[in-house]
């Protein structure tokens, strides 16, 4: 198998597959200590596939909104120095806790990102990564960026068209959400995540 480092430090190409290095978490395929990172499972992996380069550095602190069972969080924790992982639903948070138990650089927070109650805990972060299944996705990103994102920091926002409005066309949902985000961010890129994720788009936004 041919191993090549990706432009993002900590991410690798194994032949044509994305991978990070760390201990296995959710039964993903491994090769040595390389963990394959399936873009069909992880929107961040899909975004890296689509976009190529992202401003993620090994010394970064990340605020992760919508951590779910911690699949993507675990890969991100292989790459960056610290992840504040926010998840609202206690049921999936059970899996997230299991991931945290095996990793020293994830801070689990069972909270609603729309009503942040983690203000005493979360430091200034370099990146906000957001993948929430709630309606007010733009508002959540802005609220958290206002509180926690450093000047010049990036927000990677995965817009789930279906969560915002089931009936509207996904592209129109993206447009409307992006328009809201523009109040606070400079939108650097938008990528639809087809074919990996249906009706999802990733917005790369820099705080102004």
């Amino acid at each position, binding site marked *: 198998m041919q191993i090549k480092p990706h432009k993002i430090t900590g991410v690798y190409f194994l032949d044509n597959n994305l991978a990070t290095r760390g201990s296995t978490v959710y039964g993903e395929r491994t090769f040595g200590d390389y963990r394959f990172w399936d873009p069909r499972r992880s929107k961040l992996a899909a975004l890296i596939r689509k976009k190529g380069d992202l401003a993620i550095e090994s010394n970064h602190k990340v605020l992760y909104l919508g951590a*779910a*069972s911690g699949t993507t969080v675990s890969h991100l924790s292989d790459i960056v120095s610290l992840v504040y992982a926010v998840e609202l639903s206690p*049921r999936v*948070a059970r899996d997230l*806790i299991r991931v945290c138990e095996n990793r*020293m650089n*994830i801070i689990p927070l069972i909270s609603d990102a729309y009503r942040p109650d983690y203000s005493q*805990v979360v430091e200034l972060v370099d990146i906000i990564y957001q993948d929430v299944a709630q309606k007010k996705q733009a508002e959540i990103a802005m609220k958290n960026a206002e509180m926690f994102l*450093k000047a010049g920091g990036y927000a990677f926002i995965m817009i789930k068209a279906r*969560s915002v409005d089931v009936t509207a066309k996904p592209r129109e949902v993206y447009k409307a959400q992006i328009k809201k985000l523009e109040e606070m961010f400079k939108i650097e890129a938008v990528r639809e995540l087809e074919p990996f994720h249906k009706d999802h788009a990733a917005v790369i936004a820099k705080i102004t």
Partner: protein
Amino acid sequence: MKMSDRTYNVHLWFGDFKIENGALVSSTIVKKNVDSILKKINGRDTLNLDKNCRNLFRNIAISSGFVTSDLEYVETLREVTLELARKRVLEAESKKDQQIIQCVESIDDIDESINLLSERLTEWQGLKFEYLKGEELERAIISSKEMRCDALAVDFAVMVTRLRETRQHIADHISSEMSSFAPNLTNVAGALLGARLMSKTGGLNNLAKMPSSTVQVIGASKALFRHLRYGTKPPKHGIIYQHPLVNRSDVSQRGKIARMLASKISIAARLDNYSTNLYPELLEGLERKVEKMKKLSSKIEEENADKTT
């Protein structure tokens, strides 16, 4: 980092601090054990903290003597938040499921009571208010004090009305709880039916583990066992009969629709039990399938009608 010359009162998970001109002037630190820190965090000070202060958390922790290194800061925070997360999960899990079940069962109790009481009211006061029944009768009695209606009857009617209101509140509560607790089940089955299915099976987890053929006949156990024991016709549907797709369809099609609905309910319950996301395509798929089936069967009917004439 350049801090402005302001005074900041900073409330953090490990203590309260005052910063003047970028220097720490006073501090109260929490005892460094999980319980004390948890108490401090649950105090939940919402603070409109200057963003730039957020860069100083570790510095403050070290210079106030709470921890000795960066590494220890993260270790301690991790230990505490992990414990807090475990607690929150435990709390929520042991409650939510059961709370919703209690609610939906109490609705059934209230319905029964309302029927009983409003029947009594009709018998008691029905002669004075001809043709009126149920809610209308209650309203008429309450608003007719000047007609010298029995004060006791008014009281009675007010109570039944209150009961109806309470029922509505509980139903609203179930709707909102269900859509966050089990969004897919709620989307496919509706909040009340979804909650009833959970109550019949003992919880979402149990419902998720059931085959959809069982889900189809939950609540029709009498008929099911009669079928199994005596070979009578199997039931077409249990409580999923309450779903409009079933009970608003032609009798000849209800069995098929109930089967489709049950399979989608099973999938929805499993999604909710093992993930958080909402998959609206589930309901859309079901509706499309039902529509297709209806068209097909009406076409067949037409053809048969053509043949016989």
